[in-house]
């Protein structure tokens, strides 16, 4: 039985951002944060050294999920919430492909929450980008599972009652091997984060704060605004202390070893006991970082956790490889089964 093989072509002229722009008109609202994310993805892909026919974008339904139409690779705009399942099937079937999932906070955490956690726990080698605008964009502005409690929308005129779900904590609780957060407006950070996600083997989960200018404008105002963001964001860098602030005069340390607190200091004399980021630490460390939230804390962005573990698709292929023995795939023998008898003429 022939597995189709797709040889990687000899590298032709290097790809550029333009090679990843499709001929489709982009139909997001002017000023939507999705544009910036699209641009950074198109800028990152050429850096990966992967031929574009080997790249597939799969999405569910939502404004964010229109994404595949705009990237000139293979793409699949599927149904609401199911992109991780479709991506899982594709990656198991075709491990030679680089598979990306683009999903929204509703798509990924409401209707598709089940598929999301299971894709992550299997550690399928795919990259999941969750565009979190804390609102249902496509259906015109209902509160979403990441909306803060009390959110007033058309479907919650006196405030939503649900407690929000936190994408990164959901991912960590699903044993994610790569968890990161970035922001649409910080293009450089976003590009770096996307590249890290793309090169991680296993499920990469990236939450991207995305401004929906029409239905939830300003949800991440402090974080996105160039004038304020240094004071409201702490960038996680492996092996480095958590320092933030325009003047780099704030940091985070652990009070009594367990509870984080913000400390202020002279930039040239940071305290020795500042919390040092470690991507390789246990999930509980990353989980603690996800609990740093405004107003008390700056919002951490960057790679929270990145550890190596076997991927589902590799293990699946290994099981099949190790089962292959001469004669073990004799179809006639299989059809005959354990017991046959002859009926004579």
């Amino acid at each position, binding site marked *: *039985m022939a597995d189709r093989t797709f040889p990687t072509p000899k590298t032709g002229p290097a790809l550029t951002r333009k090679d990843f722009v499709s001929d489709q008109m982009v139909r997001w609202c002017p000023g939507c944060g999705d544009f910036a994310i699209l641009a950074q993805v198109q800028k990152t892909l050429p850096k990966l050294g992967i031929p574009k026919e080997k790249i597939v974008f799969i999405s569910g339904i939502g404004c964010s999920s229109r994404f*595949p139409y705009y990237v000139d690779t293979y793409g699949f705009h*599927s149904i609401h919430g199911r992109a991780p399942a479709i991506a899982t099937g594709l990656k198991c079937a075709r491990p030679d492909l680089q598979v990306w999932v683009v999903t929204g906070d509703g798509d990924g955490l409401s209707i598709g929450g089940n*598929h999301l956690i299971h894709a992550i726990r299997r550690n399928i080698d795919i990259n999941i980008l969750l565009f979190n605008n804390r609102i249902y964009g496509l259906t015109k502005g209902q509160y979403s599972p990441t909306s803060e409690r009390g959110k007033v929308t058309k479907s919650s005129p006196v405030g939503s009652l649900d407690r929000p779900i936190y994408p990164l904590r959901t991912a960590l609780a699903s044993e994610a091997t790569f968890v990161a957060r970035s922001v649409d407006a910080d293009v450089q950070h976003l590009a770096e984060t996307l590249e890290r996600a793309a090169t991680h083997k296993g499920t990469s989960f990236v939450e991207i704060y995305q401004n929906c200018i029409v239905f939830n404008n300003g949800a991440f105002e402090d974080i996105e605004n160039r004038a304020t963001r240094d004071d409201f964001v702490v960038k996680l860098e492996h092996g480095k202390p958590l320092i933030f602030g325009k003047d780099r005069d704030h940091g985070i340390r652990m009070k009594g070893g367990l509870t984080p607190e913000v400390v202020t200091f002279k930039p040239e004399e940071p305290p020795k006991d500042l919390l040092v980021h470690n991507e390789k630490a246990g999930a509980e460390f990353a989980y603690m970082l996800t609990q740093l939230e405004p107003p008390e804390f700056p919002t951490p962005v960057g790679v929270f956790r990145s550890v190596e573990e076997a991927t589902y698709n590799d293990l699946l292929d290994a099981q099949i490889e190790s089962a292959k023995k001469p004669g073990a795939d004799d179809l006639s023998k299989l059809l005959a089964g354990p017991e046959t008898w002859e009926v004579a003429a």
Partner: protein
Amino acid sequence: MPAKTKAERDPHLAISPKNRKPDASEVEAVTIRFAGDSGDGVQLTGGQFTTATALSGNDLSTLPDYPAEIRAPVGTLPGVSGFQIQFSSRDVLTPGDRPDVLVAFNPAALKANLKDLAKGGTIILNTDAFTLQNFKKASIETNPLEDESLAAYKVVEVPMTTLTGNALEGLGLSPTQVSRCKNFFALGIMYWVYGRSLEATIAWIKKKFNKVPTMVEANTRALHAGHAFAETTEIFQNSYRVKKAPIAPGKYRNITGNEAAALGLVAAQQLSSHQLFYSTYPITPASDILHNLARLKAFGVKTFQAEDEIAAVGAAIGASFGGLLAVTGTSGPGLALKSEAIGLAVMTELPLLVINVQRGGPSTGLPTKTEQSDLLQALYGRNGESPVAIVAPATPGECFLAVIQACRLAMKYRHPVLFLSDGYLGNGSEPWKVPGIETLPKFEISHEPGVPPEDFQPYARDPKTLARPWVLPGTAGYEHRIGGLEKQDITGNVSYDPDNHEHMVHLRAEKIERMKADIPEITVLGEPKGKVLVAGWGSTYGAITTAVKQLQSEGKSVSAIHLRYLNPFPSNLEAILKNFDKVLVPEMNLGQLQMILRGRFLVDAIGLHKVKGQPFKITEIKEKIESLLENKES
């Protein structure tokens, strides 16, 4: 302790022990049901009896009947598990209407099955289990061995547990272990009564327990002891022989529908040169297909146990997009969950095979019982005009070729195909002539774009099949996007154009119509014209065919057709339907095919409906046909 027999209780029945037993008498067909607790090894006993029967050259058909609970309380009615087999010297198409012999391992098994037993039938029971405590568990008020409730039957009382214990003396087994061997004692009895060889079962025991020599010894001894007991005691006055059936020569095996479907998928993988991806979420009675395939990694088969049915079909669609032979299997409730994603495969025109081993519904319904009530769900259970092809095998063995054909249609026409099996086909078994691989039809499936990249159109059409190109990710220069939004024909771009949408709705329906080129015309069993035509589909085949043949041999004007394709219908269906005065549609639902035939062909189809979780009996169908022939009803 010698068994107390009815003969002892009634001296008139006794035959002198000095007399040699008479020679075996010949019978044409026998139906036996084994029944006991789930833990009594009923299915295993039935399976061994089936093998021995097949080896002796009879034709046969079997049906297991599982309780819904895994370990219902021991000795209770919900815990009763059954296995029925009919074997004969002629063609056998059903496991039999009514058992002639019931082997009951406990009072609950007797109580649950007695009503099905043929009048005058034989009951062989384990008297050791007929205790007050067990009567209570089975809610039996008086000892059936002592009241008149069994008067209409021949009752053979055998203290199976005690006798097994005697036979196993010295092996140092616990009472529980001894009790576990009593099914082989019962099997030994049945082997004597029907003249079966013990060899195959002894070989099986050796293999099965090869790590535990004591159990090999114990079970073998129990089997021999049962056989010797039947031979020497006077309880069994008679043994029976069923002559070999006229079966086409060749190599045979016994096969269930679920096994045949799994093997068909592996064969389809080879015939199409497309790796199989089988993605599913466990559900009775479909899980055995997964169990069978999960073992076949050496064949390159990829199985995926998803988090739910939606993920299972989603993963299959992803695998299909990647160019594999993508299949998802389930039962009714799971099909309901898959419906939105099947619509996605219709829209994206990707090959997909969906297997539905139907069970009693609605909701969780009757997980272990059979029904044909998902036909309308299969045909129409999706939003929008969302046609899928439907293939429905008629017998367990037929599942093999039917699944291959379903894969072929899906891949050739780039469209979802639904395979409608049911619990009766999936778990029932029959002898199956092992096909030579070289006799199976190969199918060529191409992924070549056929045009240079600049001319490529993802929704271009093959003029014959209307299929679109199945160009796979990894093909340089042909990058394209597909999705669930309506597509413009040819270009595959998203389109909200009203005329295009109408065109596409018709086009998707037309793709199904074009499949007629690949499906055989139906053949009529009997005269092409007449008074009554019985039209069936799926697992009712055996009962319908047997009933119709019996009436035909009595000179009655009745014919039958059996539909293996329910969408599209074979091209000669309408003409056939219109050649008969009356059309009868027996179904294990409330008239789903009946409604379709009426709607589609304006024929006044009459229904015969059974929804008891059990297959039709031949007599039920016969009686209905007879009453139609006698004009008792119209």
